[in-house]
């Protein structure tokens, strides 16, 4: 029976060779597929009654370096987090503008000052007075636009949180289904590598939203935990809850209850701080934009707006108005009251009494806001006082520059500088995260399909197949010999 034994051995060799060829062809076909785990075949000798009996295909495995995979996923999450923050800061810098641009807030402070100087030289010129009104109005409008832009970014962040939470929940559900399918097929002894590829892709997309750790369980299943320690999937997936809003204004915050956070089964989950359960990815970045970065930017802008309004409310500037009367800039239609500072930048406007576009009288810029009869057309006192007020060293009452005396223009320059400084730091962080991510991706790709190696394997497989076929031929000849007796 050794001849039939040899035949069986040879046949098992053929089977192994063709299985190997199948794997090689699969690998070569997927050489360009990202996320494809290079298939490797494990062969071992088959044992029957203590003796060798051919070759057996042990298993088909995916050659994936779990360490590199985990690091790369973490780098993806970090990059997403850094990018979310730096994108917002870029937009903020564009909204406020940088001093070399004439249309920036800083540039409009400059035009207001220079229009006051030229108007003081010829206060009788209506052209120059309307240039002052226009410059002041443009400055107020630029602040309004910047404030609106910041709140819009908060709304966008809120919307993207809703989207990310939906994606997270869907992803966890999908991993659960694939887990079930894998454990079923494993039980039946079938090839699960295709499903494992799928699962890796889904977990990759989850890992950008929240950094995850993948922990293998029995039967080929996996559990998912976040880096912060929260359970995302362990036998069954969690559902993350979030309630989006339709509009966002400056006074709406997480603390006031107007905006929602994320929670699981009613328990709120933090996205920022050390070991935050859902921190570190694009979800955390969106929350940081909505709840920290944007409100801080709004507060700084409001502080500049407040300083601008209060500068001109000094009763010594205009002899025709009483103390407490509104100055050149107003909070919407009225006087600024300290508790109303939140969102002031969105409401600041030129005093309507001197705005011709809103029924005001231009000459009051020269005669005084409370002047009932026209004064001498050559009186430049009030205009000079306005210019002085703009240039006076005054400590703002709020914001990061509070307590440091500065002129109106230097306050705006500091605003731009602080934003630029934050942006530079954030961009450096993003650059570093991007570089780390790139090098880990490269490392991951290095473990992928190498067509040269597959070709070399193919050479061996060809040889092995030919050799086994030759053995079968020989055995056939032997049997033939036997039969021709």
């Amino acid at each position, binding site marked *: 029976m050794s001849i039939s034994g040899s035949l069986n051995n040879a046949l098992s060799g053929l089977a192994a060779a063709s299985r190997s060829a199948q794997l090689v062809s699969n690998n070569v076909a997927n050489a360009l597929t990202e996320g494809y785990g290079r298939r490797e075949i494990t062969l071992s000798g088959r044992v029957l009654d203590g003796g060798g009996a051919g070759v057996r295909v042990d298993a088909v495995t995916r050659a994936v370096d779990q360490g590199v995979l985990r690091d790369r996923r973490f780098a993806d999450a970090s990059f997403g987090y850094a990018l979310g923050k730096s994108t917002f800061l870029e937009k903020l810098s564009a909204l406020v503008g940088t001093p*070399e641009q004439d249309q920036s807030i800083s540039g409009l402070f400059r035009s207001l000052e220079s229009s006051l100087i030229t108007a003081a030289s010829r206060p009788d010129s209506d052209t120059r007075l309307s240039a002052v009104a226009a410059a002041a109005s443009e400055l107020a409008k630029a602040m309004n636009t910047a404030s609106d832009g910041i709140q819009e970014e908060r709304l966008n962040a809120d919307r993207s949180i809703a989207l990310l939470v939906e994606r997270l929940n869907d992803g966890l559900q999908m991993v659960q289904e694939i887990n079930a399918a894998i454990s079923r097929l494993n039980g039946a002894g079938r090839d699960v590598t295709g499903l494992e590829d799928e699962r890796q892709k889904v977990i990759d997309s989850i890992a950008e939203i929240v950094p995850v750790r993948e922990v293998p369980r029995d039967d080929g299943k996996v559990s998912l935990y976040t880096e912060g320690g929260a359970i995302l999937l362990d036998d069954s997936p969690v559902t993350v809850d979030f309630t989006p809003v339709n509009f966002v204004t400056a006074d709406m915050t997480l603390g006031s209850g107007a905006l929602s956070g994320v929670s699981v089964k009613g328990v709120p989950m933090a996205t920022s701080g050390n070991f935050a359960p859902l921190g570190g990815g694009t979800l955390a970045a969106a929350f940081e934009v909505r709840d920290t970065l944007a409100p801080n930017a709004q507060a700084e802008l409001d502080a500049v707006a407040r300083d601008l309004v209060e500068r001109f409310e000094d009763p010594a500037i205009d002899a025709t108005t009483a103390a407490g009367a509104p100055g050149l800039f107003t909070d919407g239609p009225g006087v600024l009251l300290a508790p109303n500072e939140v969102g002031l930048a969105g409401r600041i406007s030129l005093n309507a009494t001197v705005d011709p576009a809103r029924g005001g009288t231009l000459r009051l810029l020269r005669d005084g806001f409370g002047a009932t009869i026209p004064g001498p057309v050559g009186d430049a006192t009030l205009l000079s006082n306005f210019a002085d007020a703009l240039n006076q060293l005054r400590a703002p009452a709020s914001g990061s520059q509070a307590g440091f005396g500065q002129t109106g223009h230097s306050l*705006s320059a500091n605003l731009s500088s602080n934003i630029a400084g934050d942006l530079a730091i954030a961009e450096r962080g993003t650059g570093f995260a991007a570089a780390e991510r790139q090098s880990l991706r490269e490392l991951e790709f290095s473990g992928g399909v190498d067509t*040269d190696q597959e070709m070399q394997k193919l050479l061996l497989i060809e040889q092995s197949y030919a050799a086994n076929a030759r053995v079968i031929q020989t055995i056939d000849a032997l049997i033939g010999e036997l039969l021709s007796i």
Partner: protein
Amino acid sequence: MTLTSIGDLAQNFQLRRDTARVNSDLSRLANELSSGLKSDIGAAVGGDYRALAGLERSLETLDAYGVAAAEAALATEASQNVLQRIGDGVGALANSLLLVQGLPDSQLLDTSTRDARSQFAAAVAGLNSSVAGRSIFAGQNFQGPALDDAETTLGNLFAAIGTPATANDVLTAVDAWFSPGGGFEATAYLGSGAPATPVRVADGIEVAALRQATDPEIVEALKGLATAALLDFGVLSGTPDERIALGRAAGERMLTAQDGLIDLQSEIGVVQERISRAQARNLAEQSSYDIARSDIVSADPYETATRLQSAEAQLRTLYVVTGRLSGLSLVNYLR
């Protein structure tokens, strides 16, 4: 883990990334070269815009001060011209009036007083002149003339002095009319009581560029001319001796007034000098701030061109390497 193979994607990924990076560098440098400005000014200032903001503000305010200084210079120049003309006229008249000694010179007196009347009108016209649409001797009332019509004023003066008997009476009455609070300020002067506000021509430099027709030196000159012009109106008509005395007194007054006008002119000259010093300072500051600003924001064309060339060379090398590496595959060597 020792790698026995390196995946296809790895090398390709790196080459693609490097090509993209060099390409974006190339386009950025080309942009900088053509526009002359750095593309990332935030990086150029290291995130701190305060110095650049200060420079921009200074440049813009210096422009505005330039406008103000030019307007002030124009006004002072015009004022000087007016005062010069008045002073010359007053001086010439004074000389001819002082030649009047006695009755035989009554002819000279008559011509001189007629001349005085028209000189008064000329002085009023000069003081009413406006430059670039504003009156320069009306204080803060830029929009209107400084003085009322000359004839009307002289008529008012003539009516106000009543019927004096002697030259001294006339002189006292004229003094009273032209003194502060008198008929001149009430009826003839149309400008503002308050002087024109000082003009800011540079940071921290204010100049009083405009005078008023009520300035004492100008009033003295007008007084002298008016006193002589009254004789043409027929004051003291019955007493030729008094008329001659009045004429001589008017001549003496005009001589003093001429000195006063010269003093006023030198005061205005000082103001003019301050304005031109401020203008010179502004120009110097402007050019140095301009240089400082372009140091920060402009891209040096030579350096940019060199970097552009090296980026080009790098990209070419990258293309050659990519081509070579793609040819190195075992597949090409099997059969």
